[in-house]
């Protein structure tokens, strides 16, 4: 069991959990998005600055478990400089990995590969997903020019 536990809480995940990236102030964001997992009470607030259709900077404030915090932190590292389309494709790849499936595309996901261990803990998948759904919904709302609503993975 504890071997299994270490596959969930891999070193990379614990590193991101203890020192989350993207935890900072971001002035004048183009996108703000909030996400919640009502069932576990995790809450996330995101701000994104865009430039030429690409992610210039992001701030993440996550109140949640190690998995949701680490997932958000890795997200912050992974998406800088990426276009909105690329972000959506990475998000789909992450979803696939969390379900224990092979992603359609072969990305170099770097640290994010560590989320693979979560797939063996079905109740924790939504923790890992929260930051991604929050970001994608935020970007989609921005694209459609609407005011952002609260995202949820329930």
């Amino acid at each position, binding site marked *: *069991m504890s071997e299994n536990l270490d596959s969930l809480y891999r070193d990379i995940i614990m590193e991101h959990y203890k020192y989350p990236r993207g935890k900072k102030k971001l002035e004048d964001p183009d996108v703000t998005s909030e996400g919640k997992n009502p069932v576990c009470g995790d*809450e996330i607030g995101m701000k994104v600055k865009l430039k030429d259709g690409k992610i210039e900077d992001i701030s993440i404030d996550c*109140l949640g*478990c190690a*998995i949701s915090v680490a997932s958000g932190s890795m997200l912050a590292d992974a998406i800088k400089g990426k276009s909105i389309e690329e972000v959506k494709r990475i998000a789909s790849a992450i979803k696939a990995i969390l379900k224990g499936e092979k992603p359609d595309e072969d990305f170099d996901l770097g640290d994010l590969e560590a989320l693979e261990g979560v797939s063996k*803990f079905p109740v924790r998948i939504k923790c890992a997903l929260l930051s991604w759904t929050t970001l994608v919904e935020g970007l989609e709302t921005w694209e459609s020019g609407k005011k952002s609503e609260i995202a949820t993975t329930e």
Partner: protein
Amino acid sequence: MGDVKTKGHHSAGKTLLNPEMIKADFPILSRRIGDRPLVYLDNAATTHKPESVISAMDEYYRKMNSNVHRGLHTLAEESTAAFEWTRKKIAAFIGGVETEEIIYTRNATEAINLVAYSWGRKNIRKGDRIVLTEMEHHANLVPWIALAKETGAELKYIPIDDNYRLDLNNIDKIISDNTRLVSITHMSNVLGTINPVEEIGQTAHSKGALFLVDGAQSVPHMPVDVKAIDADFYAFSAHKMLGPTGIGVLYGKESILNEMEPFIYGGEMISEVRYDFADWNDLPWKFEGGTPNIAGAVGFSPALDYLSDLGMDNIRNHEIELTAYTIAKLSDLKSIKIIGPHDTCMRGGAISFIDKDIHPHDLATFLDSRGIAVRAGHHCAQPLMKRLGLTATARASIYIYNTPEDIDKLVKTLREARRYFCNE
């Protein structure tokens, strides 16, 4: 099971339970989680079942299985007798009420919904008030929120104080003259707090309101006398007291139940039906439309016997001692804060806590990896969590088969979690 003396010993005038011997009656408690023995501390969610309950249900399907109240053959007679026998036992178990006042439901949630639909939709109008507390389970919250939305009634909440107890200072104002119903939990599934139901019930009645008590967490853990409480309705679930899932109870005062319309319409609940007319059956069947959970009722009977044989006073004493032990041990851990009263006289054994650095879900996953089952989350009490400024807690909840050693394992593993997550 054997008699209580083989499972308990006398000490200072009290009979203490012998949880080690009790454990042996519960097959599931000998299973392992991975390579560790199971330590089950999630009893507020559901309890395990003794051999006697499991075999009664098995026997029922093997030897007796039949529909109730309809057949004229031996199996039907035996099934009906067993089904109704449990009802008698339940009536005796909660203080000796009339058998007709015991209505089978699926669970406490359905029992409360029965009142909200059948009594509430007839008697609650715009401008009426329904009084709840800030510590209610969603089961005693959402039915009233829906009813208030539908009728335009107003919801008012008795607040909790800094010691996680109800603040009754303004009770006379909160339970106003236009209050039609006061519905509160007897024991909080999050805080463990036991509420002074007699006192609140008196105030409710003095204002002409009815009084419903959610007993999901109290009936399993302490002696309950619904007549002494003077509750108009009292709701609980069998699965939290050694019985099977899918069967629960609504107690209601006969005079009130008689005035209520049915809840579920169909077979069982009628006396006469013509193509354009139906008349209702007598209590309690008026509220029991359709084929009920017969095997559930049959399995509930030995659960009640098991608890009665141990003695609800003895069970309460066992839990007071083990709760005190748990609180003392948890208090030794600097990073842990207990969310609930410390005084064991006014609380039960559902013990919520948080670690200042580790999220409850990470704690629960870590504990599970060591074979220890606790619950983490909002415990179906989101408004209470928000009120406390929390998003989740971890909760260890004890029962008759838990020992100080179980608590020692919990505390030791919480220390290990600090090493794992916080490099301590």
